[in-house]
């Protein structure tokens, strides 16, 4: 078989057939060349073969609108043949094309012999995501295997001297709530665990056991910091031990590694993380634990967990973290008089990798502490240490604008409505996407109620609010090419501006209009479906598109982080596989459609 043909094998739908199918392909496919502007299939024309792009690009148009773009290894024409319909689109060569051509007959034969091959042509975006997920799962399980023993996973060592009376030592164990005790001997360490205590209880009298070194297991097995977590797991399993001290290079004990923690690391690090945050009694400990969140995200992603569920989990852990920080940083007397809010993507529970700090405080009316700035600065610094960069738009509680009394915010809302300029509309969107993370929920509820009321009473504000949805163009709608960015971001598209924003903002505006309180975009879309504003099919498509966009974005961001690059919202088209590309195209189309629904609903075209 020629290499050119073999090259198709990794790409769906050809990954779904066996060698026998390839022999059929070898005996039926031809390679064709078409110069620019060739019409391969006309709109309304009959398609008699399937095209597989080897090099070049083809765009499909419905009337004058670009519907799809096909690059290397992309396939088209199959759906038309299978549906036995004239083509709804015109396929035009936009970049000199070299392609494989498979005639209708052998194509149908393949479809008959390989149902999964046939199904590919009907598969929805969700199924395509499944295929990609499987691929990713397969790809890099190795990440998690390469995790090393770090201090953050260790438990504080509880060390006692060898001559301490047993009962006294047990009391220390009890007080500190630890599962094991390290015994410092004249030479080296010993360990006391549950098993040793059983031995003590059974043999205390008979063997005259007095001091802790009488019952210790000695010498102890230990590992150095930096060992692979996976080898630690093997080592502990092999020696049937559940607790093991970890030493630094100078043989000092750093802490104790617990088998249960390793197990949970390999199954799901979230458990470990959240316990650590719960246990934390200082800001530093919270910082330590929270800094490890990113590792968890990577491992979950490589395991193929849907970005939406990762976001949920991250959200749970972040909620815990913010609560803990709220308790640790703000004076007790304040806590009953304020609400700590998250804004933006974090409030929508859609943030996965940390982007920037978006937070605010509502104070009860009449309570405006003078030293607020001082505490807010500590809060800001702590978040920065954890890895939340400064918010470029300065939407942070260190900014007096986002640290106001309830009536202060109400004034602001009035002003925004009276003067709907861009800056104010952004602020409004930011505040509308907010959520209480700690403190008084009722303050926030009053504020959002006020927002619903005052926007409902103002004739045009909601339309102005919706307007920005028209300011970003879909990467497929306007530009004839997939790739839109130039310069530094050549061959990349800004997935946030061209797709994500359309869906998020559309859902936000409709939520404001319809009194929907939930801030999460998925939930907003579902709610809009329940209210009958969106039909089932549209809302399903939008949700799927959102999943696709977030999955692609997360993938790109993780890759950038791995390479030490700046994390942004650009997704590279160049090295994207066919599946990802298909998924992205479908998602972009859906986002554009949703934008049109919103534009039409608010009659934005008639708004200056």
């Amino acid at each position, binding site marked *: 078989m020629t290499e050119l043909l073999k090259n198709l094998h990794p790409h769906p739908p050809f990954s779904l057939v066996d060698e026998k199918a390839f022999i059929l392909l*070898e005996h039926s496919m031809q390679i064709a060349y078409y110069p620019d502007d060739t019409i391969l299939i006309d709109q309304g024309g009959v398609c008699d073969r399937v095209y597989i792009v080897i090099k070049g690009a083809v765009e499909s148009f419905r009337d004058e609108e670009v519907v799809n773009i096909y690059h290397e290894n992309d396939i088209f024409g199959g759906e038309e043949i299978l549906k036995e319909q004239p083509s709804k689109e015109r396929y035009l060569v936009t970049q000199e094309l070299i392609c494989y051509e498979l005639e209708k007959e052998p194509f149908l034969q393949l479809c008959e012999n390989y149902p999964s091959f046939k199904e590919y042509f009907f598969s929805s975006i969700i199924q395509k995501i499944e295929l990609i997920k499987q691929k990713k799962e397969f790809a890099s399980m190795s990440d998690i295997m390469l995790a090393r023993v770090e201090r953050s996973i260790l438990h504080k060592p509880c060390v006692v001297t060898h001559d301490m009376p047993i009962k006294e030592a047990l009391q220390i164990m009890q007080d500190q709530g630890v599962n094991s005790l390290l015994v410092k001997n004249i030479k080296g360490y010993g360990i006391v665990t549950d098993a040793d205590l059983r031995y003590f209880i059974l043999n205390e009298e008979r063997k005259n056991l007095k001091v802790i070194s009488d019952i210790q297991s000695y010498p102890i097995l230990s590992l150095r910091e930096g060992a692979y977590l996976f080898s630690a797991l093997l080592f502990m399993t092999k020696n049937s031990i559940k607790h093991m001290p970890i030493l630094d290079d100078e043989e000092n004990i750093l802490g104790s590694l617990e088998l249960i923690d390793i197990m949970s690391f390999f199954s799901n690090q979230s458990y470990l993380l959240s316990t650590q945050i719960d246990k934390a009694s200082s800001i530093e400990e919270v910082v330590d634990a929270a800094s490890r969140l990113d590792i968890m995200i990577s491992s979950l992603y490589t395991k193929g967990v849907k970005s939406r569920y990762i976001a949920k989990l991250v959200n749970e852990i972040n909620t815990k973290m913010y609560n803990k920080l709220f308790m640790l940083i703000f004076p007790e007397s304040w806590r009953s008089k304020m609400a700590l809010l998250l804004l933006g993507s974090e409030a929508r529970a859609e943030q996965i990798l940390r982007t920037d700090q978006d937070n605010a405080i509502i104070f009860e009316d009449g309570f405006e502490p003078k030293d607020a700035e001082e505490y807010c600065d500590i809060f800001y610094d702590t978040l920065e240490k954890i890895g939340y960069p400064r918010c470029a738009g300065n939407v942070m509680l260190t900014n007096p604008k986002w640290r106001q009394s309830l009536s202060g915010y109400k004034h602001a809302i009035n002003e925004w409505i009276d003067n709907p300029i861009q800056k104010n509309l952004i602020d409004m969107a930011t505040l509308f996407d907010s959520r209480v993370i700690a403190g008084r929920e009722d303050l926030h509820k009053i504020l959002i109620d006020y927002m619903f009321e005052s926007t409902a009473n103002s004739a045009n504000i909601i339309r102005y609010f919706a307007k920005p949805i028209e300011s970003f163009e879909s990467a497929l709608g306007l530009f004839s090419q997939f790739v839109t960015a130039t310069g530094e971001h050549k061959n990349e598209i800004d997935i946030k501006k061209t797709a994500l924003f359309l869906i998020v903002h559309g859902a936000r505006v409709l939520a404001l209009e319809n009194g929907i309180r939930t801030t999460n975009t998925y939930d907003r879309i579902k709610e809009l479906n329940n209210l009958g504003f969106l039909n089932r099919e549209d809302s399903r498509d939008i949700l799927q598109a959102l999943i696709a966009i977030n999955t692609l974005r997360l993938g790109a961001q993780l890759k950038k982080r791995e390479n030490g690059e700046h994390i942004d919202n650009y997704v590279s088209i160049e090295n994207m596989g066919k599946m990802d590309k298909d998924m992205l195209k479908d998602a972009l189309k859906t986002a554009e459609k949703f934008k049109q629904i919103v534009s039409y609903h608010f009659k934005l075209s008639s708004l200056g």
Partner: protein
Amino acid sequence: MLSTFFRRQNEKSLKDERFAPLFDKNVPKDECVVFDTETTGLDKRRDSIISIGAVKVKQNKILSNEALNILIKQDSLINKESIKIHMIRNCDLEAAVDIKEAMEEFLFFIGNRTLVGYYLEFDVAMIDKYIKPLFGIKLPNKQVEVSAMYYDKKIKFIPQGNIDLRFDTILKNLCLPKLNSHDALNDAIMTAMMYLKLKNIEKIK
């Protein structure tokens, strides 16, 4: 014309009537055969052909579905150096055929079509070396050299330039996919792509 003279001489010396169609003057328009051979070395006299890959090109299409891919039995073992290049080991030659059978198959395949190739002269000379004693003729077909086509289009852009005519360079400049394996059929297909593309463009940047 002298070439007509040689052509007639060639035709007269044909010993096997089955190959008379090679001299048919009614050459199909817009059809050609792109081919490539793998040999044990670059010495026309001493080295022998190991495999032949050929595809027909009809208008804008490479008929890869009816490609020719022949492996040829060797008198002696292939030496290590050439195995490294074309990756055909002695054990890969189990499906191989006699040189005579291979030449017959090849000649039937090409008929009177124009031959296209990359450094075609060498491949043609290798074929001639076998068919002259077997059938009394040399290849009478019209020949088109892809690297010359490339040169002509490229020179329009850089009139005084030194033009790199390496296979991979041409592929790259024509934006064609690069393949890793270099067997005769893969190379013939790549060359066919070059040919189609060169036929359709005016000049190359």
